[in-house]
């Protein structure tokens, strides 16, 4: 039985073309990109080409606006810590309650240690930012605003370009964690007010352990990792050349597949969502119906617990997730869904299905075939279901 992978927001399969692009840089082209001799020079040229591939994907003006990092978490940390250092007369951060732990943990730490005051802005039931609260938090004390482009659990997209404009009015730097958005939705940074953007290679069919931080030309920046003069002295450490080449190739492929992501992949997602809502009563789709990543659906099944569903799905050869991969080891319900005030009966029953261009229509068929029976079996075992079924027999599926 073919295994079906629907956890692409956690990580994606490295594209074989990406692997092919990387391999010579382990063996044939092994030089250090910083070396002056020919071994290094040819590698340096390839790194520059990869940077331009990423520049194209992001719609950035200059290739040197791209700083390679070890991944999204390092990029996020570098952006925020840089802003605090670059604007020493400001010590406030504005972010949201639904950010990735790479942002939330850092902000909580900065607050705990007294290094910054942090405004955690709430969201509504669809996961959209409370704009009034956001406006109210902005002031000339704010060093940096960090808001995600798209939520990793629900796929909800924040209007970051507009939010960046508002931040600029107060002289704050604007950073967006676009780890989930890059490669799935068109991005053009050239004329935006976004100062910094984080991305991660393995979320777009590139290798793990490589990411990038876009820093707009002219934006103030202080390195997180100091050392040699790599990355124009903005990130010390010998370049991870094979991974950089792989990320460049992944960026090129993502640009080529963007239409597919918005078309075929989105259709797969929508077909699954529609079928589940039709066949399984008492479901809630979490996220913004209109502004959402094309590949993500987060469906909460009332009166069952998500891990039980996932175990059954996994046995049937289907891999999905109960939330972000980083927090799925936790017993706590998702901080994102809690911030969205999802009803108690559904809070523990959310399952995230995230597609990629590797998925096919048969994958959706398999899930649609298996899922209603799994939920029914678990609900029959639930002490709450019989009463709930009586009360909500006529209820229709809802969209949060």
């Amino acid at each position, binding site marked *: 039985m073919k295994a079906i992978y629907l956890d692409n927001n956690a990580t994606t399969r490295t594209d074989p073309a990406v692997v092919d692009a990387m391999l010579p840089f382990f063996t044939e082209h092994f030089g250090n990109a910083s070396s002056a001799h020919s071994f290094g020079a040819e590698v340096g040229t390839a790194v520059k080409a990869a940077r331009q591939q990423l520049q194209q994907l992001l719609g950035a003006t200059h290739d040197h606006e791209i700083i390679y990092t070890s991944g999204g978490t390092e990029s996020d940390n570098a952006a925020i810590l840089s802003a605090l250092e670059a604007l020493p007369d400001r010590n406030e951060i504005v972010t949201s309650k639904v950010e990735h732990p790479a942002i939330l943990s850092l902000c909580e730490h900065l607050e*705990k*240690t*007294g290094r910054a005051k942090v405004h955690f802005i709430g969201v509504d039931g669809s996961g959209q930012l409370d704009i009034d609260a956001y406006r109210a938090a902005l002031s000339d004390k704010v060093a940096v605003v960090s808001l995600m482009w798209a939520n990793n659990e629900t796929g909800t997209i924040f209007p970051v370009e507009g939010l960046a404009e508002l931040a600029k009015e107060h002289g704050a730097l604007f950073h967006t964690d676009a780890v989930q958005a890059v490669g799935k939705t068109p991005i053009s940074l050239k004329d935006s007010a976004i100062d910094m953007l984080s991305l991660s290679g393995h979320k777009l069919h590139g290798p793990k352990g490589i990411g990038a931080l876009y820093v707009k030309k002219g934006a103030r920046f202080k390195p997180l990792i100091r050392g040699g003069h790599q990355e124009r002295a903005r990130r010390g450490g010998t370049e991870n050349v094979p991974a950089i080449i792989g990320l460049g190739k992944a960026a090129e492929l993502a640009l080529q597949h963007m239409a597919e992501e918005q078309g075929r992949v989105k259709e797969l997602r929508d077909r699954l969502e529609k079928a589940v809502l039709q066949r399984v009563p008492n479901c809630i789709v979490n996220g913004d119906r209109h502004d959402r990543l094309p590949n993500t659906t987060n469906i909460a099944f009332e*009166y*069952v*617990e998500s*891990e*039980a569903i*996932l*175990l*059954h799905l*996994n*046995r049937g050869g289907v891999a999905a997730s109960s939330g972000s991969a980083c927090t*799925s*080891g*936790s*017993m*706590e*319900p998702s901080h994102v869904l809690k911030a969205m005030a999802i009803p*108690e*009966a559904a*809070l*523990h029953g959310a399952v995230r299905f995230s597609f990629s261009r590797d998925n096919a229509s048969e994958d959706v068929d398999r899930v649609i075939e298996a899922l209603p029976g799994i939920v029914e079996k678990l609900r*029959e*075992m*639930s*002490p*709450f*279901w019989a009463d709930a079924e009586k009360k909500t027999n006529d209820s229709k599926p809802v969209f949060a």
Partner: protein
Amino acid sequence: MWEYSDKVQEHFFNPKNAGVLDGANAVGQVGALSCGDALKLMLHIDPVTEIVLEAKFQTYGCGSSIASSSALTELVIGKTLEQARALTNRDIADFLGGLPPEKMHCAVMGHEALQAAIADFRGEVWRSEHEEAALVCKCHGVDARVIERAIRDNALSTVEQVGAFTMAGTGCTTCYEQIEDILLRVATEAAAASAAAAAAHATEVARPETVAAAPAAAPVAPRPGSLNLFSAAVRAASSAPAPAKAIVRPATESSPLSPASPLPPPSAGMTNLKKIRLIEETIEDLRVYLRKDGGDCELIDVDGSNVLVSLTGACVGCQMASVTVSGIQERLMAKLGVPIRVIPVGRNAH
């Protein structure tokens, strides 16, 4: 995903005795939707022999919850009520070939449901211990007695272990300090009981005709992974063996500031500069926690054994300010090993 034993998986995918038991004469229900897990245990007990003839369950929860419920029913069928009552959460976990530490609360839930069902059969009003004792973990509705029992039954020694067994402290973590207090109390009581038993035994063997003297309180070992604000350091410092009578002295006599009170030995050779630096560092460490609660504390001056501090933010006017001050005082004494008096003053006092 968690690593489950084959037996856990077997009881999850093919649970035994799932469903409603018609004619049940003992029902125990614990947990809640808000907690993410709940269990309704239904038993058919022979009224004469008090043997459990049938058992069924309904569970809302994760793989471990369902497997634990299934295991529980298998364990109780055929047992007398007294035998069933003696089952612990550890028995449930062992039956399953173990559970991940983070999932032990599922077995605890099974144990609670069983106690509730037995009480129901006896016609007793089983009150969830959650309702009887002080609520400690507000996120998961876990109270002091549940935590205390989990500690005793499973010989837990860290806050993290308590979290794995009861879920207490796995939410906002503001109850860490209370959990540590309970851990300390249980450990102290256990050590005292153990020492008393050993002393009684020794006395009986050596001089059975005399009454045993009060044993010395056993030292409480510092716990790894402690995140407690004041208690860990203070307790570690105060864990040195004390004279037996110290534990029955009036409270005033045992005040660390009292001339008669036993103190840790002064740090030999500590210069004023070193002392002040140590005070500064200690207060700086504590400020992190105070700020978390919206307060703050700043060192103003050091005058001999008097440490002058300025409380600000939420600490100003707080009913617990005196507790905060004495906590700082205890921590400083533990660090310096000399009597210290912490005096709150205005910011511009010096």
